[in-house]
């Protein structure tokens, strides 16, 4: 509504955000808007930084609010509404908190396994408690790791809070079956996991996109991944962007979100961030098509539910698994 | 040319110099003699402008130095530990003052001064590669190079071996005489003070105890303290009655009221063989003679003897009354 347009837009995001320079250059060439990327740690830290500055934002656009963080960001009144014309149809499949945020990508946290060691992988979460898979699973600590939390949420979604067999019972069984908890994704994947790490555990909590990444970033080159995804027990995390309330650069901010929904940017996210595009018009690179599929029925929980229960769940998880 | 009047300097609670008076004439070298901590260095520092005076005045050629900062006084100071600049070589150390003056022909003057102190060709030598004697000469050269109006030397030979000290003291005297720069030399060694100073000022606890020619100081130190500092040991207590001071068998006329007085019996005044019976305390070889210390009048005196005396034995000595001085 007639505010002064600056030629720069500031994008506040986490340290794993990546975008090819050419795309940004193109954006600048097309719109005359420079993009300044401000990073500040992982997604949780960045969202909190944004919340601390709510109303008087450090940047114009925030990218990296995921399903587990969304509710908190909305509660803090971080964003101003914006509905991008660029993604009119497919946006509606996602929870946009009544038009305050725009989905950009989604990723599934899934169990990966070592195809060489496990010719008969488990096919369900329940299988993991079987004696056959004893001592095979390694999970990042959900109290510090975001994939770890996602996996916990998947189990909560599956087994529920009440009833004869709750998620706590499930984790007690995992514990009895010698699940290993390590610090973060890296410690699990590059430490304990047998296929990519130095350890001997053939099942690890990772991403649906990990097997194609193994092919893409192999040395020497390989054609087929030595890891694969177990389709059951995946948890879907959607990553959102939003225009930060109080931005003096509303129009450039909106252009940036439009850009992030555009086919070019959307096609870049699989290889630069290992997530899947929300725009169905974007085609996936071959390695993705060959080595993984988008899980058909991932678990998901409403952001409000996560926000309301997270602390309790984590405490209960600690009591169940660590005490 | 230099007149220091009523100089008082404090370091916090310590009264380092207490109403000191000094004068220095043109072409003269004054030796400042005193014990460690007596304020010798402080006097030099005050003259050089490195420490503020609490009271008193310092004039050089009639001009008050008070308001003039150290770096504008043109007074050369050779520090007790030389304080050579460790990051500069010998040549650059000597050239330093010249450069500060913006002097024209620095190189030549450096060569000239180094030649004067006998260190020709050592320009490029690093400071930490100098022996003690060489460092002393470099310090002197550095100070002489900018032709100061006045030279202050703080224990210039302090840390050297005795035989080197004696040699360098002679050289230094010659150098001072040759350059003709008036100088104050601080030392705690009487022999050195006498060798270098045309006059000697003795400091005791920050005060000027006495000033005079070496001969005056030696023969009439005036006080017990000065007598000790000069190195005299024959200090005895006598009783005066009617202008005659008596101690053991010695009687000598003094100008003092009746009562107890302290007498100095100068070295050489006592000789073996005579009317005064004494007891040997100790005996040590001095070359070529032995020095025997004997008890006398509550103190002791030294007599020369051709052979050692056994401690506890009796010896009779004579004392030349002209070798006796009154102390206060």
């Amino acid at each position: 509504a007639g505010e002064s347009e600056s030629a720069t837009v500031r994008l506040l995001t986490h340290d794993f955000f990546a975008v090819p320079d050419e795309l940004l250059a193109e954006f600048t060439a097309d719109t005359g808007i420079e993009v300044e990327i401000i990073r500040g740690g992982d997604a949780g830290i960045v969202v909190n930084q944004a919340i601390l500055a709510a109303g008087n934002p450090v940047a114009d656009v925030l990218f990296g609010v995921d399903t587990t963080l969304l509710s908190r960001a909305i509660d803090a009144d971080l964003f101003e509404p914006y509905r991008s014309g660029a993604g009119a149809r497919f946006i509606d499949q996602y929870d946009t908190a009544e038009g305050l945020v725009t989905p950009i990508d989604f990723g599934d946290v899934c169990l990966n396994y070592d195809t060489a060691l496990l010719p008969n992988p488990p096919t369900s979460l329940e299988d993991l408690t079987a004696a056959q898979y004893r001592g095979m699973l390694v999970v990042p600590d959900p109290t510090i790791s975001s994939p770890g939390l996602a996996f916990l949420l998947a189990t909560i979604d599956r087994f529920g809070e009440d009833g004869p067999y709750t998620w706590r019972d499930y984790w007690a069984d995992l514990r009895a079956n010698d699940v290993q908890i390590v610090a973060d994704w890296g410690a699990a994947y590059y430490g304990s996991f047998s296929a990519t790490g130095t350890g001997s555990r053939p099942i690890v909590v990772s991403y649906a996109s990990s097997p194609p990444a193994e092919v893409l970033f192999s040395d020497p080159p390989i054609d087929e991944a030595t890891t694969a995804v177990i389709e059951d027990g995946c948890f879907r995390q959607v990553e959102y962007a939003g225009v930060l309330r109080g931005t003096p650069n509303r129009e450039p901010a909106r252009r940036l979100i439009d850009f992030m929904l555009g086919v070019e940017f959307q096609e870049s996210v699989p290889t630069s961030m290992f997530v899947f595009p929300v725009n169905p018009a974007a085609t996936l690179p071959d390695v993705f098509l060959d080595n993984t599929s988008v899980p058909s029925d991932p678990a998901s929980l409403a952001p409000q539910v996560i926000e309301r229960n997270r602390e309790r769940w984590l405490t209960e998880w600690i009591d169940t698994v660590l005490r | 040319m230099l007149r220091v009047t009523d100089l008082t300097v404090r370091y916090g609670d310590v009264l380092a110099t207490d109403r000191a008076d000094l004068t220095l004439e043109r072409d003269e070298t004054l030796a400042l003699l005193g014990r460690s901590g007596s304020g010798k260095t402080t006097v030099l520092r005050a003259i050089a402008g490195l420490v503020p005076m609490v009271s008193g005045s310092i004039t050089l050629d009639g001009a008050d130095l008070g308001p003039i900062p150290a770096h504008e006084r043109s007074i050369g100071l050779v520090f007790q530990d030389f304080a050579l600049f460790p990051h500069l070589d010998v040549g650059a150390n000597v050239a330093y003052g010249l450069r500060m003056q913006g002097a024209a022909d620095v190189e030549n003057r450096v060569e000239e001064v180094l030649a004067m102190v006998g260190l020709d060709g050592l320009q490029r030598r690093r400071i930490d590669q100098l022996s003690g004697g060489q460092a002393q000469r470099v310090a002197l050269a550095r100070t002489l190079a900018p032709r100061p109006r006045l030279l202050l030397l703080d224990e210039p030979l302090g840390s050297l071996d005795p035989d080197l000290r004696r040699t360098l003291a002679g050289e230094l005297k010659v150098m001072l005489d040759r350059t003709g720069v008036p100088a104050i030399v601080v030392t705690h060694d009487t022999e050195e003070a006498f060798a270098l100073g045309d006059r000697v000022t003795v400091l005791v606890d920050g005060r000027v105890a006495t000033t005079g020619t070496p001969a005056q100081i030696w023969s009439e130190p005036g006080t017990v303290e000065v007598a000790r500092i000069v190195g005299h040991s024959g200090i005895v207590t006598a009783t005066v009655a009617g202008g005659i001071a008596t101690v053991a068998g010695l009687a000598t006329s003094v100008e003092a009221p009746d009562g107890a007085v302290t007498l100095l019996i100068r070295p050489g005044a006592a000789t073996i063989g005579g009317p005064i019976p004494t007891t040997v305390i100790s005996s040590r070889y001095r070359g070529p003679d032995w020095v025997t210390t004997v008890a006398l009048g509550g103190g002791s005196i030294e007599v020369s003897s051709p052979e050692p005396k056994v401690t506890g034995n009796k010896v009779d000595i004579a004392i030349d009354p002209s070798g006796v001085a009154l102390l206060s």
Partner: protein
Amino acid sequence: MTTRRASMLLALPAAVLGIAFFAWPMASIIATGIGADPGRVVDILGRGTTLSTVWFTLWQAAASTALTLLVGIPAAYAFARFRFPGRRLARIVVTIPFVLPTVVVAIAFLALMGPGGALGFDLAGTVWAILGAHVFFNLAVVIRTVGSLWSHLDPRLEEAAASLGATPWTVFRTITLPLLRPAIAAAAAIVFLFSFTSFGVVLLLGAPRLATIEVEIYRSAALVFDLPAAAILALIQVVGVTAGLLVYARYQERSGIGQHLLPAAATARRPVGRQRWLVGAAVGTALTIALVPIGMIMWRVLTAGGGLGLGSLRALGAVDPSVVDVPAAIGNSLRFAAVACALTVMVALPAAVVIASRRSPMGRWIDTLLMLPIGSSAVTLGFGFVVGLDAPVDLRAWWGLVPIAHTLIAMPFVVRSTVPVIRSIGPRVREAAAVLGAGPGRVWRTIDFPMLTPAAAGATALAFVISLGEFGATLFVARPGGKTMTLAIFGLFGRPGATNLSAAFALSLLLVVITGAVVALLERMRVPGVGNF
């Protein structure tokens, strides 16, 4: 002699930097956090986990300090008192760990003593891994701080004790140890602070059960979104660290012994007889501790992609710049480090001059306060910047925050390494210059400046490597522009794909190499005889 006005002027930049970029942001965020829900203070303080976390933090820091001293003191002795072949190189090697980023260290330790680690036992998640990493990190602090005083101790005191009938162990216990107390206390204080606020190491090696206050702060801030809890924990940390530092400063004041120190060259000798074994064992242990994790990184670099080779260097070259721009990261790191150097020259060195010129307790207090930033929560400070730096000029996402944070962390080390040098110049040479006709400005230019240059250059190099290897504070600051090397390493370790892992190790090795080169330079510039760190 610096006048009161001059010293206030010289201390000003450090004071401004400390207040504007440390005290104020810290106070702002803690106030905001607690203000959000003051009622929770009691609740959080009374929580069992708070107590157990504080307890664990304290005891692991104490244990880390004790262990580091245990390993470091013999090595300090060997380095301080003996001349042996390769001494300079060995000093460089044991110094490198200190400036390595925590991520790299944690990952090297995981590869070494984690699941399937090279050592064959899995210590991940146990306190042993944490202690090991802390010893590895801080060994240099003890070796350099204690060693520097030790190298100046008059050996005749020990000889006097021996000639009075004291056995070597008694001599050490009754003479050496008491005389070294100030340096041991200083080293212990720094090691304790580093271990007390340890984040990356504990996060990665301690999970899932072990956490320091700093890790809990991170958890509260990043995952549970409990800002009041984070703020209260940060407050506990700041208050604890400050109290500790005050006790330390008082202790240093009390236990200060006026002793005659000798130039280091006058105390070092060749080891003979049994001493050879002692020196060999002490230096060997220190070298092993330093080299094994570094060697682990090298091994991973060399064996990436199967056989022995330089595959990882290729991998490093091949990293997709749109994922992690390696050359840009190197450039950024060097740029930040350069700015930290410049800030060090402008801020830390003047402060060092002030501290050096005041022998009064004041100097010691400033010296102590400078240690506060290394004992404070990086996560919290990152938030503090966001809360506190919006007015009068909005600096919240200013690129300068990162090098400023680095400078604050480097400051105590820079000050400690330069103050003794400045003091060693002594008033005498300045006075000599003055009587030779040099005014105050020229004295500074012709005497102080050239004499300080080597120490200042050394201090600047130290700031450079500290900046280069800094991770914790860098990560949590909202910063524009690209990544630094440590963040790039972190990013590469966080992605699947063998080449990413290889590239991460290769980049770590590059950091080790650059650090090693700069530390070597630093060793060269050491002013013989003085220098505390």
